């Protein structure tokens, strides 16, 4: 059972690295934000996996139940999800403004335009 004992953590690491890969490899700002979201969700998954107790149930007190899973990671992640969507929407708002001023959301094109602007009229 050695592999199963750590299966959740390894999938979390895979998802985290997949998000990281999208973030550094992708050229499109929207896709980068989605990569960041995947990275973020993998952290959520890690916390919730840590909170699970064998034979436990959801942490809502009820008659005849002795083992509960750990409620603390649930609280931390619940609020993190809502804060996550708020910050994601801020990032998307920035992307919309970038689109309006550069007319592209491709990172390399934005850098090229910046370079042209820096070189200015003498170029």
């Amino acid at each position, binding site marked *: 059972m050695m592999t199963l004992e750590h299966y959740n*953590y390894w*999938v979390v690491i895979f998802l985290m*690295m997949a998000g990281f890969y999208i973030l*550094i490899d992708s050229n499109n700002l929207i896709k980068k934000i989605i990569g960041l979201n995947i990275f973020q969700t993998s952290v*959520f*998954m890690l916390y919730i996996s840590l909170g699970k107790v064998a034979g436990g*149930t959801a942490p809502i007190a009820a008659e005849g139940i002795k083992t509960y899973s750990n*409620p603390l990671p649930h609280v931390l992640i619940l609020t993190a999800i809502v804060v996550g969507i708020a910050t994601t929407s801020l990032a998307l708002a920035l992307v*919309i*403004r970038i689109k309006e001023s550069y007319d592209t959301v491709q990172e390399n094109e934005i850098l090229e335009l910046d370079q042209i602007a820096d070189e200015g009229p003498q170029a």
Partner: protein
Amino acid sequence: MSNINLLIDIVLLTMLVFTTVAIIRLRSLFAIVMLSGVYSLLSANIFVILDAVDVAFTEAAVGAGISTVLMLATIGITGYEQKKRRNHNWIAPLTVVLITGAVLVYGTLDMPAFTNPNDPIHLHVAPRYINDSPTEIGIPNMVTSVLASYRGYDTMGEVIVVFAALIGVLSLLGIREKSSAPLHAEPPARPILQVMAKFMIPYIILFSLYVQFHGDFGPGGGFQAGVIFSVAIILYTLTFSQQDAMALVPPRVLKRFAAIGVLIYGGTGVVSMFKGGNFLDYNVLVDDPLHGQHYGILIIEFGVGLTVACVMMLIFFAFISRGDKNP
């Protein structure tokens, strides 16, 4: 964890892996956004299997609902395709990712086994919450006890972060209110969708109120309720029109209420200080400490719900009013 739950957990996690691989390989942003909705729904299912019902609730409403809608609104403005790059080098990022991943996997080998009740994480703080919160706070849902009472400071911080993000979005995009009067197109523009929406919206709102006020006893609370409430208005906006929705819930009113929600939360803390307790110490709110806890949690959860609902609606309005056409 019983065997069948472990099996479901493994299958769902594997589906998550396939979804992620598809997201990496695809180039159409529309498909990617849809897959990220699938990704969120799968994660919500995994959270249920891992006993985190409150978290699953939030993830399903936020990740699969609002996040997808906001992403779609954005790609409606910025374009649906990811352009192909010339001389695209994927070896360097892949190497970085593989090395980081290998280091992390090496780190997990020292970690205690998954679901073991004697893991360090389960030995501190958590026993206090699990054993004492039903008698100390007096409500069965331990997640709500911890969220609203034991760690009320944290939650207040989170609400303020949500509010601050709203200020950021509004200062970046603003909300363009159309001056024309609300349009009720005759005959209706999308009759089937509109009739179905009219049928569903009251139930969504009723459900959000249930989640709000029943959060002490079952899964739920202000964060989930706020998001679900805003989903009702988003559905109304998508099936009818932006003008109709803005006439129903005017953005300038929502802005006030978003701030009032934060004020209710902070105000509860100040009142408890005036009553001789610490900031956000509900025991002193009324004579009986248990009743005080109950009132305190109910009030601050209401503040949270109000702020979250208003913030989500305003952010949505800001995004769709930026596009040229109505969605």
